[in-house]
């Protein structure tokens, strides 16, 4: 969950990046890389495309960072850039098909664990593929980044109630497809806000 202190710190980072500070940009990348990757993977369902999308989104965000209004949080704006990058990439990729590169192609220390992880991941990606795109994005942003429905509504350009409905339906579908690990259908971090 984001606090006002972390938002203020992030605004300082954004200002530093606008002036060309490499370290500040590295901090923003470290902060958002994992969640951006998960979001991109849930949209594109292909590890190679997800990597391209994340890289493209960060570069696009850097090129356009002056468009971020002073005082505005970086996160929601970055996810809008990421989403648009994913959609552009998917449109482009639709024109040419290619074989999926295994997500854990680089390999880990334990091949059996890697295989298990790979199977779980494929199952999850398959389940996400069953969701309409808006549900997929809403549940990813809600469960991954801890965004409120208000923020998700702003990122996706939908109503707050629609965001609630998307998360609810997405979780129900995921529970059906991958079991209880999808989390509860209702409730979540927002109840603590």
């Amino acid at each position: 969950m984001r606090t006002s202190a972390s938002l203020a710190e992030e605004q300082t980072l954004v200002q530093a990046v606008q002036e060309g500070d490499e370290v500040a940009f590295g901090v923003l990348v470290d902060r958002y890389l994992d969640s951006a990757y998960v979001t991109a993977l849930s949209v594109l369902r292909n590890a190679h495309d997800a990597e391209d999308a994340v890289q493209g989104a960060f570069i696009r965000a850097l090129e356009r960072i002056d468009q971020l209004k002073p005082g505005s949080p970086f996160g929601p704006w970055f996810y809008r850039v990421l989403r648009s990058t994913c959609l552009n990439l998917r449109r482009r990729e639709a024109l040419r098909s290619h074989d999926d590169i295994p997500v854990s192609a680089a390999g880990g220390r334990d091949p059996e664990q890697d295989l298990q992880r790979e199977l779980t991941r494929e199952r999850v990606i398959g389940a996400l593929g069953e969701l309409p795109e808006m549900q997929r994005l809403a549940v990813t942003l809600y469960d991954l980044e801890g965004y409120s429905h208000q923020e998700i509504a702003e990122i996706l350009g939908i109503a707050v109630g629609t965001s609630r409905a998307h998360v609810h339906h997405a979780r129900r579908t995921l529970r059906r497809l991958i079991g209880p690990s999808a989390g509860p259908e209702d409730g979540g971090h927002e109840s603590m806000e």
Partner: protein
Amino acid sequence: MSNDRRPIWLRALHPDDVTRRRVRGAILGEALPLLAARRDSWLDAVAEWATILSPVAAAVTLIFAGLALRQAGSADPAESLASAPAVEDLVRPENALPSAFGRDSVPDLDAVLTVIYESEGP
């Protein structure tokens, strides 16, 4: 949201360390020239502003200097007389102030002027 509160399905989608390093390296590799360009443009902007503002600063300095000189030239003579050292300079030794205007007391301007006029005579 802390990692352990995230649903398990999300944890399965996270990039492994190798992927994370690879993506991070690719991003920073592509970003460095853009950041360098930003730094240069920022410095250029500062230099440009400095170039634009230096004649203005010089003009403002000249205006203030002129005003200060003008003010110094048109100083009120009464104010000059009012200062004790100036009054003392005006009085010649033979026309020294009467003892009533001792150094310890603050001289009254009217009294001093009266003494000066009387000593010079008609």
